[in-house]
């Protein structure tokens, strides 16, 4: 993976690297190092906009400098030094102007972010955790947290983020600007939360990454495909980064495990024509075994620490599915145990709905329908397409075709994803067919 580093480690390969190779190295450094460089620079500028500008400039400068001098051994450190120099220059020039700006509150170094990289004698502390926690601060709206994380941690442009969330570019730009303004005006500190606040604050970060993943997992407005690979890749990269920065947090390992195991099934979730393939129909031999192995190891590790949280439990559920030789050979009773624990840790109606499906597998479709009926009365899932879809499937299994057709129709009316709609339309036709 470390293509930049390995290329620069080869003697002689450096100086005659072509223009394209340099551009590729800079692009690679953008993908891998953006958060590191920006986070370190923001601590100098104490202003996110100024930091972004300096980092952009550093990447532009890298194109020329690396063509002349070769790709540095540690591109992240090179870019950080360049961006920080630029920041200090600007600071000197604009001292009077900046005196009037509200600056980022840079808290003291907390024990959470002690990942350090050395380049020569210069030691640069890793500020990426500060950046992540600032972007996901609970005083910011969830959609702003997501947008800021993509922009500042992943280095996406506003246009790219707007496209990912199907809003206009001006709308997204306004959202990002407003969030940045609140960070400085309300003095949201640029720091890693203290131990007492950490569980809640970390949960917000994990929620943002998970939301990013689920948006990519099943594109809510997907007119073409089911999956948005770009968002999925970003979510995986963020979860990996967080795992690297907070290796001792079981929920971080849980989230990465959950995403890896779920994504391991990506290739089989649709057939060659883009049609939806249910878990029971997927060819398990095509699942990404390496990703499942990595995910399952993370799950084991997270569970070993006791009192697993909602991400570790979801990952354990995904692992159980992934390790089952077939749908019918799945350990449904054990899944029900995990769902009961998940529901206690995270009393969400969506969890209760998924649990109802497992109840149906253990105790029969009627028992599952009873659970779903309770959820319908509860009302919080009104408008959630997977409720009528799950209900329809249980009714189908009981051969109650008219009712099943109605529920499939209700799910169809609620779904805006093309692959899902095509699947549901097929089921509606199947239920309507004569010869029951």
């Amino acid at each position, binding site marked *: 993976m470390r293509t930049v580093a390995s290329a620069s480690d080869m003697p002689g390969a450096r100086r005659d690297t072509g223009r394209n190779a340099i551009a590729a190295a800079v692009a690679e450094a953008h993908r891998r190092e953006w958060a590191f460089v920006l986070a370190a620079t923001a601590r100098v500028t104490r202003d996110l906009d100024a930091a972004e500008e300096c980092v952009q400039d550093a990447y532009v400068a890298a194109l020329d400098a690396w063509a002349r001098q070769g790709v540095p051994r540690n591109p992240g450190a090179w870019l950080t030094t360049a961006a920080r120099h630029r920041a200090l220059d600007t600071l000197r020039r604009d001292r009077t102007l900046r005196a*009037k700006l509200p600056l980022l*509150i840079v808290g003291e170094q907390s024990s959470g972010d002690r990942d350090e990289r050395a380049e020569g004698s210069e030691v640069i502390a890793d500020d990426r955790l500060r950046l992540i926690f600032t972007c996901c601060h609970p005083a910011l709206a969830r959609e702003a947290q997501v947008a800021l994380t993509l922009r500042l941690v992943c280095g996406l442009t506003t246009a790219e983020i707007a496209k990912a969330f199907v809003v206009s570019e001006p709308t997204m730009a306004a959202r990002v600007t407003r969030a940045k303004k609140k960070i400085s*005006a309300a003095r949201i500190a640029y720091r890693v939360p203290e131990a007492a606040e950490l569980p809640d604050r970390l949960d917000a970060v994990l929620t943002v990454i998970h939301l990013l993943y689920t948006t990519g997992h099943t594109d809510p407005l997907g007119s073409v495909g089911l999956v948005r690979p770009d968002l999925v890749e970003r979510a995986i990269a963020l979860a990996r980064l967080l795992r690297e920065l907070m290796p001792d947090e079981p929920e971080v390992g849980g989230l990465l495990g959950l995403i890896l195991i779920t994504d391991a099934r990506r290739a089989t979730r649709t057939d060659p024509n883009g049609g939806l393939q249910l878990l029971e129909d997927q060819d398990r031999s095509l699942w990404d075994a390496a990703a499942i192995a990595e995910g399952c190891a993370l799950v084991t590790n997270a569970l070993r620490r006791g009192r697993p949280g909602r991400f570790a439990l979801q990952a354990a559920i995904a692992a159980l599915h992934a390790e089952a030789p077939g749908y019918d050979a799945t350990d449904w009773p054990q899944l029900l145990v995990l769902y009961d624990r998940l529901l206690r840790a995270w009393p969400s109606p969506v969890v209760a709905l998924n649990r109802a499906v497992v109840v149906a597998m253990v105790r029969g479709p009627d028992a599952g329908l009873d659970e779903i009926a309770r959820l319908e009365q509860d009302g919080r899932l009104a408008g959630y397409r997977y409720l009528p879809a799950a209900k329809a499937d249980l009714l189908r299994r009981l051969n109650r075709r008219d009712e099943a057709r109605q529920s499939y129709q209700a799910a169809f009316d609620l779904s805006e994803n093309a692959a899902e709609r095509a699947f549901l339309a097929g089921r509606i036709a199947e239920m309507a067919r004569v010869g029951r």
Partner: protein
Amino acid sequence: MAQYAILIYEAEGGYAGGGQEAWQQAMEAHTRFAGQVGERGGKILGGDALEPTATATSIRGDIVTDGPFAETKEALGGFYLIEARDLDHAIEIAKLCPAPYGGVEVRPIMDTSGG
């Protein structure tokens, strides 16, 4: 240190319904709160309780109207001006602020000194 306003929004009926006892309890809670702010490294710079919205008069341009700008279930009933290190610190303090019939809103004070 930065300055924040803690705005207390509550259903006015709460104190009316609870009578003298509710009021007494609230007063004691606010006295305790004043002590807690100092213990947490913050500072109260000012603050007051407001008479109910029934006593409010709104003025827009030249038009004087009886009542508050907006009739809402929870009305601004009092405020504190505090000093805190950052938003997290202000939130930590605001969480301690008594508001049994509603909640509080934290707003940074705008720095207008820079011109």
